[in-house]
Structures are given as structure tokens and as C-alpha cells.
């Protein structure tokens, strides 16, 4: 068993089920991290030692009782106003992976792809020494405790992801709102879902109001994007348990694709409005590639 410093995670079966040794080696070699460097030290990460570095954040009017050492005398000399310097202490933000495990994710291998994507991100977070946690949700959020950075947390996350099954309905708004209320501190919220459920805007909004940095990863199956079936079919909503007979031809397929495009467009608009980074992946693609894409493009 190798520690994070040596580039591998754990030899437990759950790891092997989700990510192959070659994929783990690829992830271990990358130097990408969700916390991008802002300092002058090349290639370094932000320091996460609390109290070791204070960074000026803003001024505020002086109030009686303020430490006189924090009064900015230069401003007073220039503007004859007493202002107090406010420092913000940079603290580490944990990674919350919110994973949709409803029945609709079972179509076309979406859940499998999402679990592997989440595993890759967890592994990257573990390699970077960040705290992370996986939180599946269906009708409710399954809160698994605070995010941790230890190796046991990685093993637990992998085991949890490997045992996930697609069942139940999705309450995207309620689950994300619950997450916003439950998570102990603001962090990086990565929501992985097909987002083919109503209420995603309310959920994302709740996360944003909780001061989380949010990314919406939409995973769709080939069947969702371009259904290949023609003829007389009975469409069956796997979550709602209701059906609809339809004669499916080219025009009906085209109409569905247009409806899906409109739906995704509304999701994109919402994400843009809420400053949520949006990703769209097909379930038949590479989850490791998707993870690297998320890390590269997401600017929390």
C-alpha cells in the first residue's frame, strides 16, 4: 500500500473496481489541483496553515474598541478618516462531491461514469492533501459526515462509490438545499447529475447562497441524447413510474432532441446566472479525462 506521496492510493477492491491502476497512475502524475496557485512561488499551492499568513482584505470605518494597531494611518494622513484594516485569513476549502444516484442515473451507465468521475476527483483531492467527501443524493441527501483528508476517507469514498446503485427518485432542489444547510463550512461543491429533473435552479441557488463554489457536472447517456429506437414504443419514466405510448419516428426524435437542447440551454443560463461552472459529459466517455477537464476548467 502506498501513501499519497508515492502516487497511489489503496489496494482495496473498491479502488480496482472504479479506477484501473493505469488510470490511477495517470491521475497521480498530474500536477493539477482544485486550488490553483496565486502566489509567487512557482508551482506551489496556497498555504493551508491557519494563522501563519494574513492577507489584507479591505478597510472598514473605525469603531471604538478596534485595535489601534489595525488603524491605517496612511489613509488617515491622506483622507483624515479613521479606517481599520481588515485582514482575511486564507483557509482551505473542502471538496463536496454531490452525486445523483437516482434511478434515472442507471440508464446508459450514467451512474457508473459518475462514480468513476467522483472517484478520480476524490483521488486528486487526496493527492493534493485536500479534504473531501462524497454525498450521494436521491430524494434526500445522504450526509456521510465531515469531509476528511486522510487515506481512510479515500477508502471510504471509494467503497461508497463502488456500492452505489441507481434507485429512488431525484429531489434535486431539496437535496442541494439540504446540503447547503448541512455542510459545516463553505467549500467546493461538485454536483454530478443528469440534471433531467425539475428544481435544479433552486438547488444550485441554495448552494450558492451557502457561499459554496459550485460546479454542475451534467452526465448524459447516449440514449438520452439520441434515442435510437423507432416504431411503437411505450416510454417509461424510471423515476416517476409512469408511461407514455408514442410512435417514434424521425420527426419525434428530432422534437425530443430539440426539447433536450432547450432544457440544457436553461441549465446553462442558470449556471451562468449563478456563476456556476457547467460541464457536460457523455457516459460513454472517459471519466478520468472528464475529471482532468473539471480540474482544468473549474476556477473556484
Amino acid at each position: 500500500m502506498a501513501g499519497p506521496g508515492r502516487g497511489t492510493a489503496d489496494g482495496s477492491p473498491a479502488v480496482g473496481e472504479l479506477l484501473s491502476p493505469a488510470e490511477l497512475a495517470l491521475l497521480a502524475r498530474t500536477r493539477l489541483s482544485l486550488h490553483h496557485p496565486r502566489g509567487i512561488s512557482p508551482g506551489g499551492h496556497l498555504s493551508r496553515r491557519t494563522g501563519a499568513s494574513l492577507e489584507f482584505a479591505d478597510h472598514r470605518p473605525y469603531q471604538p474598541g478596534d485595535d489601534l494597531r489595525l488603524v491605517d494611518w496612511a489613509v488617515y494622513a491622506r483622507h483624515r478618516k479613521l479606517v481599520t484594516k481588515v485582514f482575511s485569513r486564507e483557509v482551505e476549502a473542502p471538496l463536496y462531491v454531490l452525486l445523483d444516484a437516482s434511478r434515472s442515473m442507471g440508464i446508459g451507465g450514467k451512474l457508473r461514469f459518475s462514480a468513476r468521475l467522483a472517484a478520480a476527483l476524490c483521488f486528486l483531492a487526496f493527492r493534493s492533501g485536500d479534504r473531501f467527501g462524497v454525498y450521494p443524493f436521491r430524494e434526500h441527501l445522504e450526509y456521510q459526515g465531515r469531509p476528511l483528508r486522510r487515506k481512510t476517507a479515500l477508502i471510504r469514498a471509494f467503497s461508497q462509490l463502488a456500492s452505489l446503485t441507481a434507485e429512488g427518485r431525484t429531489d434535486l432542489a431539496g437535496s442541494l438545499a439540504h446540503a447547503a444547510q448541512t455542510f459545516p463550512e463553505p467549500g467546493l461543491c461538485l454536483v454530478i447529475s443528469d440534471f433531467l429533473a425539475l428544481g435544479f435552479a433552486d438547488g444550485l441557488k441554495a448552494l450558492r447562497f451557502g457561499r459554496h463554489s459550485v460546479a454542475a457536472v451534467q452526465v448524459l447517456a447516449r440514449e438520452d441524447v439520441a434515442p435510437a429506437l423507432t416504431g411503437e414504443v411505450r416510454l417509461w419514466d424510471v423515476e416517476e413510474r409512469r408511461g407514455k405510448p408514442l410512435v417514434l419516428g424521425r420527426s419525434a426524435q428530432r422534437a425530443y432532441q430539440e426539447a433536450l437542447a432547450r432544457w440544457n440551454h436553461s441549465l446553462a443560463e442558470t449556471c451562468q446566472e449563478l456563476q456556476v461552472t457547467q460541464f457536460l459529459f457523455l457516459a460513454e466517455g472517459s471519466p478520468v479525462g472528464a475529471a482532468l477537464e473539471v480540474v482544468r476548467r473549474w476556477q473556484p
Partner: protein
Amino acid sequence: MSFAQPWAWLWLCAVVPVIILYFLRRKEQDWPVSALFLWEGIRPDRPLFRERLRQRLDLLLFLQILAMILFAFSLSQPQASFPRPSGATLLVLDGSASTSARGMSEKIVAAARKVVEESAGPWAAVLWQDPPSLLGGATSSREEILRALARYRPNLSRRPELAQALALFPEPWPRVVVITDNPPTVPGVELVVIDRPENLAITAFSVRPTPDGARYEAFVRVRNDQKRYCDAQIRVRTEAGEFWTSRLLPPNEEEEVILPLSGTPTQAFVAELLPSDDFPWDNTRYFAFSSAELRVAWQGEEDRYLWAALRAAAPVAQAEEDADLVVAVETQLAEEPPCPLLLWMAGSPLFPRGEAQPAGPLRAAPSSFLAHVDVERFRLSEIYALEFPPGATVLLWAGDLPLLALWEGPVGRRAVFAGKLKTSNLPLLPDFPILIRNILGWLVPPEPAPVLEVGQAVTLPPGVEVISEQGQTSGLWMPERPGIYELRRPAGQGFLAVNVPWEASQPPTPAPPSEVKTGEAISERPLWPWILLALGPVLLVEAVLHERRGG
């Protein structure tokens, strides 16, 4: 076939609703989707006919349509036309000994049935055996001729000429089909050759005494008509015991075996060949010595010509008592003997002899007793005048005097020759022993040959009886089974050996190429039973398929 049957049309029309029901039935495929709300408001496409057809093409539909069509087809009472040989057909079924092998009867009857099925009729059937018999007279009823064929029974006798069997019908038949295991070389007949089973047989069996008379030698010829070597055991049984030997017989070859037999002299012998096979009657052969010796009581003068002629005609021996025949030469008997009597220039109380007189010209009455006898070569100078009782048959006349006459009365048969032999050339002619044999054969009928065949009718001499399964038989006797039969006669016990014909053990002759051309006629047979038979599996498959799909 005729589709003018309304029920057939009605049933066939029922196929249409079945197809329509299949087309009206919705055939939807379940398609799970992630979000049904995305499909709301989408107008359904008009399905292509080809697509609908493809979805409704179902094996169950095919099976149901097939079943209905088959049933409608059977209701239409279809007929199948078959070309068959036309014209009247005479079936000649070989029923000789070789067809008595196991399984042969069934094959012959099956072949005859096949001929009947494939021909248009009328038919007749003849059983070709000794004697030939009619199985079924001319009939146009197929059922009747098939019933007649069921009466086929082979026997163990020899097969007569085919013409004898065909002679049962005065008019010739345009088509004669001979079903046999040994095809005859008769032109103008169709041959159906039935293969014989492999056979192991004794083809010849005889016993002879050794020159010193101390013992016997059995001569056995065995034949292996099998396709493999056979380790055969040969056993000869006599009253004195059993004698064994064995031979390794090559396939399709004969081998002769001489087996010395020791012990007391005996008259009946049985040769057996092991192992047995499907034609067991030639695995056992029988042989018997003739014990018939004609005991002759000689009275009067000696006549060496007459004695030589008698010896040439039959095994004779002189005896004083219990004679089978009394021969009186140149004498006058005082009393009539109670047995057959040959009066040779002699007289008896019934036939008083007169004086010798000059003989007139010879003339003969037509008679079988003078067969192969040239009377015109006879020369005779003197003849005794004899008186004959009523009922005598004169065969030869010398002028007005009878020269040779036969008479049969309560005391026995009498043959009288009145010519004075010393004044004749008769003893020097070859006709003389022939004449004596003919007369002797009537006076004392000979016993049958000691070795007979099944079906060979023999005439037993007076006072001789055969002990068979049916009891004691005298007069005419025809053996029906092979075996050793006891012969009872006044002079003592004898034996008759009866075998199956030797031909039955010989390999059949190859069939000559048939050049018989027969005309053809079209006959029709109903097909609906076969169609209904085919309907069963179709319905069974349909039911199983329906059950497997969950009813």
C-alpha cells in the same frame, strides 16, 4: 382436390380475421427514459407500414395461419395422383420350402402388398408351391386381395414349374409378378426378388456300408452361405450312438465330410448341423436304407432267363415261406397260393393249363404294361391253351389264344404267360426284362424309395403302413414334415427318410434382367389423413411457444 367444399372456404376465410387481429393489436416496446417530461407534447409519427409489419411478424401468427390453412386444406378433401401400373396383375407368391425361413413370409407378403398398392388392379394371387393353389381369385377390390394375401402360408415342399401355377387361370394375365427368393428364368414375368437370410445347410447326406461290411460311412456335404467363417459341428445319430466332427467352413463354400460310423448295423440315420439358423429344416437331414427285398417262392422248373429278369426288376430272394410272390414255371399247381402269382407256362386251379398248340400271329392290346416293349420283334412257335376266369385282362394274343393276361381276384393278383419260351426269342430280347419289370410292378407294387422329399406322394404296397403324426397311413401317403418315419409291413419294420428339397439349400440363381414393360394408370388417394397428421405437430409447437411466452 376440390375447393368446392363450403366448409373449407369458410375455414380459410377465418384466416383473415386472425391476421387483422394481429395487425390491430398494439405491439409496443418498453423504452425506459430518464425524463418523461421532455417527451411531453411531442406528436407521434405515423408509423411506416413496413415497420408495423415487421413488428407484427410473429412465429405464433405463422403457426396459427399454417394450422388454419392445413385444416382448410384437409376439409377440401384433396386427392393425390399417383401413376400406377395399369392392367390386371397376377401375383405369384413363392411358397416353396426355402420361403419357410424365419421372416421370409412377412417379406413376401409385404412385397405383394406393395405391388397391390402401386398397381391399379384387378388382381389375383397364386401360391406357388406343390401343389399350386389359389390365394385369391380375380378381383378389383384392393381390400379383398389384401385379405387373400393374408392367407399366404409356405410349406416345405419342392417348387413345381411356374407354368403349373399359371395354369390355374385359363386366360393369360397381361401382367404377372412373381415374388420369390429364387427367381425363375421365365420370360415375360416381372420378378420381385426377396433376399434370403444367411443359411448354413446340409446339402447332401448319404450312408454306405464299408466294403468289408463291418461298419458304415456317412457322407455329409455342408454349405456355408454366410458372409463369415463358420465353425460348424456335424453330428450323425444312429441307433448305435452319436458321431461328431467339426469343420471351419469358409463363406459361400461347400465342404464334404466323410464320417466313419461304428456300431451295430442300423437302417435310419440323422445328420445334424450346428449352429442352427433361420432356415433350420436343412440343418437336419435324414437317410434310411431300403429293407424291401422281394421274397419269391419258386415252383416248377428252373428258368435262368426269368430269374435274371426278376433280379433286374427288383431285389429278389428265394424263400420257402412267407413269400411275397409265387413264381410257377412249366408246372401245374395243385392249389392257389394266397399271394401274388406269376404263372410262367404253368397252370393253377383257377387257370388250368391245356396242351401246347402252334402259336398264331402276335397282337397286342393297348396297355401301359407293354410300355417300351416292341411286340413285333417277338417270335413264338407254340403256346399253351389256358382257361381264364372271368375278369381277366388279355394283353397279348397269339392268334386266337391269349398269350399274356392279368387277373385280380380275392386270392390276389395273377399274371399268366402261356407261350412256350423254348420256342421263342423272347428271353434274348432286351424287351424281356422290361416286360417282366412291368408285370412285377403290378403283381407286387414296389415299396417307395427309402429317401423322400416333403410333398412327394408315394403309393404304399398293400399291407404296408407308415406311422406318422396323423397315425397309421396306408395306400397313398404324402409326407408334410421332414423326419424318419416307421414303415410297417408283413415282412418286418422299415424306415422312410423325408427331407426338405435339396434345392432349398442351394444359393438362389441370379435374377435375369427384366424387360417387361407395363402400362401406367393414374390413381388418386385421399391426402386429408396425412394433412391432419401434419397438423398435430404444428399445434403442439404453437401451444409450447405460447406457453413459453407466458400464456
